């Protein structure tokens, strides 16, 4: 078991964590350590290609891969310490971050401040209360993208896209790239989704203000049932349903650390300084709250960075 110490430990080397680390360094905070559970930095940025973001540095529009490159050079340039393959499992009072790493074993880091930037988890069929059976063929957008990109294979024949989030648009572009057929788009709101507007003109049926309420099929998905506000139902035959409702804070590390949770909103309890109920442990990005778009998440991260840095310094 190893025990280290640092000024600031950031948990998660995604968009938020990296932006924060760079800014902290900029302001002269020396000892910043980022812990990342994956084998590489980037989080979401590793999987997105088409979605236009804004750079937390110059606030210009930027593509995910470009932003990832910016981060990579910042890390080298600013000499930021990133531990990949390192999963923070718990935060003790102090604060002290308990993590595991295959090479080090259990690693405890005593820090002055800790920022949780672990991001969110995707909203799934149970969060949405889609009822019926539980077959294969139901994927969240990011999982769908990861499967396609990682294995370079199709994950369905007749796909229905369901949601209102921009990651769903990204998923659609990957489906298209690998040659999968999208049979219908179902959106619970009365709006079109950016790029999806174009494809609805390509002849893909677009169901507005409809919800997927029922899944059928015991092994692989066979059909979904959609319903409008009046409860009028319609069945669509398909073997794949891709959900695009974005992210909700993943409270896992807070739950492991007995931190307080806002039961109604299902987000960590934070004060005006973004501090959680654990002293000197802060929350930001998709871990802190639900955002409708990545741009909004980045904008707010930029805005709150100052606040957090103020407190940290």
């Amino acid at each position: 078991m190893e025990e280290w110490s640092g000024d600031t430990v950031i948990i998660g080397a995604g968009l938020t964590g990296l932006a924060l680390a760079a800014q902290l360094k900029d302001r002269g905070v020396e000892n910043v350590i980022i812990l990342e559970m994956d084998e590489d930095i980037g989080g979401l940025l590793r999987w997105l290609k088409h979605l236009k973001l804004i750079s937390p540095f110059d606030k210009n529009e930027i593509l995910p891969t470009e932003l990832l490159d910016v981060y990579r050079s910042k890390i080298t340039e600013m000499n930021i310490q990133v531990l990949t393959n390192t999963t923070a499992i718990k935060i003790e009072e102090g604060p002290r971050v308990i993590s595991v790493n295959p090479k080090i074993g259990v690693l405890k880091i005593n820090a002055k401040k800790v920022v949780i930037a672990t991001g969110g988890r995707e909203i799934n069929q149970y969060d949405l209360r889609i009822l019926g059976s539980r077959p294969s063929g139901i994927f969240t957008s990011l999982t769908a993208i990861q499967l396609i990109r990682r294995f370079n294979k199709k994950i369905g024949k007749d796909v229905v896209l369901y949601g209102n989030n921009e990651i769903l648009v990204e998923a659609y572009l990957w489906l298209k790239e690998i040659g999968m057929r999208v049979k219908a788009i179902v959106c619970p709101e009365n709006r079109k989704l950016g790029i999806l507007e174009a494809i609805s003109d390509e002849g893909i049926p677009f169901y507005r203000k409809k919800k997927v309420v029922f899944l059928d099929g015991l092994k692989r998905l066979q059909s979904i049932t959609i319903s409008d506000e009046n409860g009028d139902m319609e069945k669509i035959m398909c073997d794949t349903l891709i959900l695009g409702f974005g992210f909700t804070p993943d409270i896992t590390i807070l739950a492991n650390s007995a931190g307080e949770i806002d039961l109604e909103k299902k987000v960590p309890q934070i004060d005006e300084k973004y501090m959680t109920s654990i002293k000197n442990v802060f929350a930001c990005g998709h871990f802190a709250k639900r955002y409708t778009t990545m741009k909004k998440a980045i904008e707010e991260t930029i805005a709150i960075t100052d606040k957090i840095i103020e407190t940290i310094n």
Partner: protein
Amino acid sequence: MFSENLPSEADVVIIGGGVIGCSIARELSKYKLKVVLLEKESDVGWGVTKGNMGIVHPFVPQMKMLKGKLCIEGNKRFDELARELDFPFRRPGLLIVALNWLQFLAIIIAYFWLKKHKVKVYWISRSKLRKLEPNVNKKAKAALLVPSAGVTDPVQYTIALAENAVANGVKILVNTEVVGIETKNNRVHAVLTDRGKILTRFVINAAGLCSDKVEEMVGIKERKMWHGKGIMLVFDKVFGDLYHHIMAPMPIKMDPRTKGGAIAIYVHGNPIWGPNLIEAKGKSDFYVSEEDIKMLIEKFKNLIPDFPTDWIIKYFAGVRAIDDNSWDFVIGPTKVKGFINASYILSPGLTASNVIAEKVIEVLEKEGLKLVKKPDYNPYRKGIRGINTMSLEELDKAIKNNAKYGKIVCLCEMVSEAEVIEAINRGAKTIDSIKFRTRAGMGRCQGGRCLVKLIELLHTEGKIELDKISLKGEGSYIFVGD
């Protein structure tokens, strides 16, 4: 773990790899016999067993029925079983709560009734109840505590039984469906499967939901199966300390057809509520409706009024095979020599499983099977050690021995790559098989994050072609469309 080749003969063939079939397999593995277990799914425990809530009942109200008797006896076995087979089990105890004065009167009667039947029970006053369960409804008048009630993981228990049976010589074949049974002079002669024929003189019908179909194969048509569906709600384990006991409101009407249900903390830490009992539309009616969910919440939220009932992470349905005539277990010989039933096992079948298996052995002996004990029978089996059960010192040591313990695959349930690889090495060939063995994918994100990693490990460690990787066996493939 699972055999690839169908043997041409056996002393006993068990049909069905649920908790009953696997209990029987393990009991039979104590003797010098050739035992074969056939399961149509890709893993054991995927039928009725999987849809079980995991409660080890202290008793059922129908004390005089076979299920009542075997329940009491079966409950006692679990400490030893869990010790030998290393599966998760604990006894949080059952609180039967009186929420109103009518129920209060009923628990007074129940108290003496349980005493009469020699079930250990304590009277819990209102103030004591509040100490035991601070979040219980303030209106609660009193409760009964039955300390012997336990919780376990039905599928992990079944896997443990199967692994131990295999270690002692039983052959288990999965993805093998029985299509017929040959008889000669009204005696079992062979079992026909979709992969060939096994000559045998004894067949055990432990086919769960297909018990009726298997009976029909030898011409038994007396029974009618009633399919009882039960829905269960699983909540985020962050609320796993809002209550501690298994709890149920005192039921007022006693009808063998009602299933009281309860709220419990699952053996892995999640609050779990259920099940109800409604008539299913057939054997594969695993559908959950909004009404089911509402009904369960309505029924139980009075026990813990502040429980955050919208933190459901999963809901699922189980279907039980019930003999519509007796509403009891069907265990014993039949008019066809050598064809023995251990079927129509409804609640509390999980609790009674070990005793049911012993009953079946007695029947087999009476029916002429020669039982000679194996001198080298080993009752012990080790489970897959999860890092979420380790202290930090143990975890550190484990990672130093095997770096893969330090690579987290499932964050929600804290499952490492080492555990997943071990599950694969022990025979897991599908995503669900890994899930049941390790808990990867069982947490609040429901597999959104770990699916890609599990597929990768099935492919690289399990040497399964990508096109053959499935959620739960044939037909549930992930990659389709190429």
